């Protein structure tokens, strides 16, 4: 329905505004805004990045008009920044506007339409609108297969994201098929030892685990870890992250000794990974908090969580989903500490945040409600 309305609006535009006959664009300022917004995102200053990207959008719209394909890359970047900020509905509006422009101006089978569809599908995956996301990925895949061939890396990218989505939808077997095809294309293009395979291998592990095939998941994760260890120096965050994923798998499969051994290695590795920039170090600190939690080092874990929560609230704002995710993990810690009331209070706070930005049937909200119910339930006996 939304797409129909947008298409209708696009049809009206020629009557509302005519093309600028001899446009003059402040191209230097435009370029500075684009580059600056991209750089600012990498330092986590999203509000600044959004303002700068808005400025770039105004410049390009003034030159070409609001429905010109040159506007779309700017709209997409603006939407991506809004995704980082947790402003999902604004992001959706901008991605959709870009898609509608490309569909009308370039035709529905243009490769750039596939790019727009993939952006939207990623957003819908975050919003747990899985059916809509799958539809968009399927359409994008079909365009890419026709325009770049069935074995292109563009096709592989879509298959990878689709595989991840199918895992989230608990359709593990289809996820495995998509990821297997993706991996085969990537191996052919890059060779079997390339580091870029790691992401696909880790997603394949998740799909295998969803299928109940823990041994296959272990094989994927071990191959990913081996690739990282072979290609990188030992003091890299990527290795700690990969090792922790394997430890997580062992833990959820019930191999507590194996998992403990690996978590200890991860913890030692993470201790060495220090830095002064908290934004850059945040993923490592979070991983360390989770490893400590898994090892039962609750005090150390709590110290790190407190630090990260404060930082996330300052960076994203108090109502950001990432704050809620941190609170959810902290509630797990409180539960381990036996602080039931504190755990309940923290879970409620997390759920309240998510309810402001996500639909009530989002899996993260349902998961929080389930935990709230389970903690609130009086113990038997």
């Amino acid at each position, binding site marked *: 329905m939304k797409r129909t309305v947008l298409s209708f609006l696009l049809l009206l535009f020629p009557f509302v505004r005519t093309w600028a006959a001899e446009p003059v664009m402040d191209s230097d300022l435009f370029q500075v805004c684009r580059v600056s*917004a991209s750089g600012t*995102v990498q330092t986590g200053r999203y509000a600044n990045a959004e303002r700068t990207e808005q400025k770039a959008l105004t410049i390009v719209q003034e030159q070409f008009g609001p429905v010109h394909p040159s506007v779309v890359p700017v709209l997409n970047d603006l939407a991506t920044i809004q995704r980082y900020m947790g402003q999902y509905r604004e992001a959706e509006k901008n991605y959709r506007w870009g898609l509608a422009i490309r569909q009308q101006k370039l035709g529905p089978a243009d490769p750039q339409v596939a790019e727009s569809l993939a952006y939207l599908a990623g957003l819908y995956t975050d919003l747990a609108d899985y059916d809509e996301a799958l539809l968009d990925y399927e359409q994008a895949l079909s365009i890419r297969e026709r325009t770049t061939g069935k074995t292109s890396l563009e096709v592989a990218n879509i298959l990878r994201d689709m595989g991840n989505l199918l895992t989230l939808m608990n359709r593990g077997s289809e996820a495995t098929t998509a990821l297997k095809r993706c991996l085969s294309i990537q191996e052919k293009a890059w060779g079997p030892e390339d580091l870029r395979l790691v992401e696909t291998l880790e997603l394949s592990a998740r799909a295998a685990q969803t299928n109940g095939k823990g041994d296959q998941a272990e094989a994927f994760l071990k191959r990913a870890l081996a690739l990282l260890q072979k290609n990188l120096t030992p003091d890299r965050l990527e290795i700690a992250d990969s090792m922790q994923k394997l430890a997580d798998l062992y833990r959820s499969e019930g191999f507590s000794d194996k998992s403990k051994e690996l978590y200890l290695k991860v913890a030692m590795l993470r201790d060495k990974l220090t830095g002064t920039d908290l934004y850059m170090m945040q993923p490592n600190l979070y991983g360390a908090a989770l490893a400590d939690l898994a090892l039962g080092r609750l005090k150390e874990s709590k110290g790190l969580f407190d630090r990260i929560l404060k930082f996330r609230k300052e960076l994203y704002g108090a109502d950001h989903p990432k704050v809620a995710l941190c609170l*959810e993990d902290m509630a797990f810690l409180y539960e381990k500490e036996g602080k039931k009331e504190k755990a309940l209070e923290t879970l409620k706070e997390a759920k309240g945040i998510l309810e402001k930005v996500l639909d009530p049937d989002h899996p993260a909200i349902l998961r929080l409600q389930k935990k709230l119910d389970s903690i609130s339930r009086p113990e038997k006996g």
Partner: protein
Amino acid sequence: MEFPMNPLKPLTLLVAFLVFSSASADFGNWFVANKRLSTTLDSPTKKISYRFTCQENMTLSAIAVYCLEALVPCPAYQLSLQEDDNGLPTGTPLSFCSYVPQDHAWATLPMDAATLLKGKVYHIVLEADMLRGGGHSVGSIGNSNQASFLSTDVLNHIHPNDGSLDLQANTLFFDGSKWKELDQEPIYALYGVGSKFQGDVYDDPGVRPIYGKVLQGQSLHFHCGYTGKALAFRVKKRGNPSALRYQILVNDYRNHSCKPLCPAVVVPAGQITSNFQWVTVGIPEDVQRLFRAECWFFVFQTDSGRAAKNEDGCEDCYQLSDLGNSGGPAKAADLTFDGGPHLSRAVSFTDASDLTRWTDEFERDANVGVLGPPCKPENHQEVEPISTPILLENEPRAEP
């Protein structure tokens, strides 16, 4: 000084070009035309389409096409710009006009404004206009009332001005029942508001005879300080010439004179065939990095040969292929190789011993290019898209 050389077959060169062009590296005129071809429209049902990929966004103001032959009284033809549908024109004009072609002439026709988008495929369609813009049929078309429109052989799949790829370029013919790709280079020019233009106006394929004291070549004006690794040129021999030599000349514009940058490089005659072929020869290592963003003359000579009244214009000589515009369309110099200031152009010396006397030919370009790494990209490249955040459900969690 003799360098190892590598005669390339045309297909090899095309493949090599496709690889190189993606990096916008080599600098030279790779666009080739062997001969003029024409397609006749002698029936109301026949049509020609010049298919092309739009090089830059523009608001259309005029289109130019070349009529090779018009039998008087010539019928009127409709020229329209159409979008592409799976390789064929949609049949719905974005803009159109009617005109009566004249023999061996370009016609530049004003068109209603239409927006063309970079990267999108369009067709310029020519067909009989039996109504001549009126309400009833006034024209006649047939064997003695007809016009033919120009295309050239071979189909290059590149834009002539900057060598960028145009994989969709082709000339199509509609015989009354179906469209057919002719695999010929479309000849056309498009004009847009604000001094924008694109197309192929090389309507005149030619050869440049090299013999005795007559030197032929191409001046190349690099757009940056350039490292030239090798020289590529398209040449053939006639009779039994002695070895071919190439020279790189520095243009001293203050004294209006040229002087050699380094000793001439010898290319053995046995390495050149009697059919046109691209040949690559190394550039001496000590001068490879000396090319400033200036005009350099790459010229060819041989000791043998003489002028002759044969079709090639010489005996025991070499011929360098070139192509040019015969005059007519506006901004033709900007549409040919190295458009804009267009300081790169075909050059000839009539006396090898006097390097102060040369002729450079506006709107003609010899097939000469230098192979090397790309210039540093300009500031206005497209910014890489911002990478999307990790999905919420993929974030590392306490409970895996």
